[in-house]
């Protein structure tokens, strides 16, 4: 190709584009769009695996709906974990209800989410017990991010 003053070869033009800091996010986005478009064509070949861990079971008549997973407090219940043998007390957290939530559960069938979010319940089981390390990483991220924000915010004085 012809060289022109101030433009350079094709390669040096590419080089100039990637050396611009402001183009960075755009470059990444272009790459990602390209991959996504290619991926969109392979979508029909993706098969949803019906045999999932921690599947959802809905029992609309339960007062714990949509988180009714059975079990009695201080006892275990059936939970489909990846490695049940690593969590000897698996299912105990799922089955537990605090006195407050037990009271709520006995009186109204519409507050299942509140009841299960209170200590105990399947989500706590996953977050604290079987996949606790995720929560360690995640709270650490919040900690670090906040440290950055606070440092920048307070540096001015």
């Amino acid at each position, binding site marked *: 190709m012809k060289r022109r003053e101030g433009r350079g070869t094709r390669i040096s033009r590419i080089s100039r584009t990637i050396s611009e800091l402001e183009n960075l996010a755009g470059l990444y986005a272009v790459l990602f769009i390209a991959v996504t478009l290619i991926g969109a064509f392979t979508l029909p070949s993706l098969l949803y695996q019906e045999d999932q861990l921690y599947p959802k079971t809905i029992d*609309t008549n339960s007062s714990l709906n*949509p988180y009714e997973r059975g079990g009695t407090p201080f006892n275990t219940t059936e939970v489909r974990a990846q490695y049940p043998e690593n969590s000897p007390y698996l299912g105990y957290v799922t089955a537990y209800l605090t006195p407050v939530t037990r009271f709520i559960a006995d009186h109204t069938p*519409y507050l299942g989410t509140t009841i299960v979010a209170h200590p105990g319940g399947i989500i706590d089981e996953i977050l604290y017990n079987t996949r606790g390390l995720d929560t360690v990483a995640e709270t650490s991220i919040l900690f670090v991010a906040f440290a950055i924000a606070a440092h920048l915010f307070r540096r001015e004085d």
Partner: protein
Amino acid sequence: MQEGETKMIEALLYAFAGIALIGTVSAASMRDPFDKLIGIGVIAAGVLPLVVYRGYLDVAVAVALIVPVTTIIVLLVCRRDAR
């Protein structure tokens, strides 16, 4: 539940879905920020009944409490633009 009643509720569901959709389109197409916020409110009006229909009253209450808070937060900058 009787046959007719179920049908009735189903019809209502579609109606609410329609409201939410109208809200979406209007919020997306309006140009004035305040009109947009009203559009968002219409979406909420369409979505909340859907939440209630599924029987999650606590969620519906919480969403109903938080959405106005979001709107007020957005209003903080809205006024400045309008001036």
